[in-house]
């Protein structure tokens, strides 16, 4: 479903039902992109909400309904990058140091890398393996690949969404594909 010019204008003029149509049209796309970039469903949910608040607040900056998809992808990409940056700035704790609490000291434990049978079953499916492979790509490569190859944005739209020039998008995408192939196929 695409947003018509009439609906876009209505939303621009404050019609909340028209805006809700925009949300309905793009919310799965935004959530899907956010999930691939952030690799965490909770973060992806937060990002999706944040994206649509930004879209609502600045819809007048979108030139027309034809630009809406890529414009929303710009906001999604930037929002996810901001979230990743925030996470990276958060303080970290040593995983092997004892942590003192009111109830005594304890050691922070992380789950074993060993997969449960259920996890293995899921990961045996090609789709899950492909998602896992995408998750292993560096963010810069992941974002261009997700936008172009999963969500079919044009090169120029990807360039706009990632604030890169076309040449950089082309080279990053080529490397991202090669890297993904290496991870996924070997």
């Amino acid at each position: 479903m695409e947003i018509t010019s009439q609906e876009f204008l209505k939303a621009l003029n404050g019609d909340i039902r028209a805006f809700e149509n925009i949300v309905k049209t793009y919310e799965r796309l935004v959530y899907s992109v956010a999930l691939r970039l952030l690799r965490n469903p909770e973060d992806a949910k937060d990002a999706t909400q944040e994206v649509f608040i930004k879209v609502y607040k600045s819809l007048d900056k979108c030139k027309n309904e034809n630009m809406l998809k890529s414009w929303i992808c710009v906001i999604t990409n930037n929002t996810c990058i901001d979230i990743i940056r925030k996470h990276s700035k958060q303080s970290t704790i040593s995983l092997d140091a004892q942590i003192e609490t009111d109830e005594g000291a304890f050691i922070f434990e992380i789950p074993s890398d060993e997969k449960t049978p259920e996890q293995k079953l899921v990961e045996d499916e090609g789709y899950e393996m492909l998602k896992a492979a995408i998750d292993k790509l560096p963010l810069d490569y992941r974002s261009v690949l997700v936008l172009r190859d999963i969500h079919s944005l044009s090169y120029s739209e990807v360039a706009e969404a990632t604030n890169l020039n076309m040449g950089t998008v082309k080279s990053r995408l080529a490397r991202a594909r090669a890297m993904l192939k290496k991870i996924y196929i070997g």
Partner: protein
Amino acid sequence: MDCNKCFEIISLYIDGLLAEEEQIIFENHIENCEKCRIELHETETLLENLKDMSLEEMPEHLHFDIMKGIEDIRVTRRPSRFLYSRLAAFAASLIVVVGVLSVMRNIAPNSGAVQSHDALFAPASPMASMPPLEAEMSEGSFAQAGGRIAPDAAFAEIDMEYGFELYEALEIPSDAQGYMRSARQDDSFRGVVFEDGLVAIFDWDDSGDGSAAGFYINDFENHVTAAPIPWGLLDISVECDCEDECYFDCDCECYEELDQ
């Protein structure tokens, strides 16, 4: 063309971004180089798989959460010029003060307002004989999903969007500007908007559950019997034992008890 160069431009070839001359050279190389042919085939297969990846399923309630977030900022924002013009008949008054001729019958039984309850609420208002209007809200609207009415100066704007419609005055006072009603299926919550911006809201079916909105209206003819208060001060929530404020259609147990 050597294989390294070929590997470099496979991506551009797949996307049809090579110049015609370069494309011919690439295809000639592919035809004669099995290694590069396999590389091209694998990359194309990979991209087909990526395109086949469907969109992720949305988590439950995410759409509602998104719209709730939008609503929260809507109530704090100044109405747009467009809406001002559309609501010009009563917009000015919405900015400032909305008078409400009401007392919360169920909500504030112990408050001082109760003392004036009988005096304020005439049993037979002109609205009482008004036939129910058929719901015109589209299915699945935010209001019907339980959206709250925003206690905000831009009340009419928001509620028109979310679940209220203005109607031509029927049996309502001649000086009423418009008529609004709830989009709730039981249609239990209605009100009128007066030209001076005062809004009278009442519990249509007298069931008391309109008290979820918190208001009973008494005197439409005089429509000012209580000191006007800013709409923003109105609390349309019901008093509830749970930590969250409750609004229409709240699912919490204590609200259900109140609603009985």
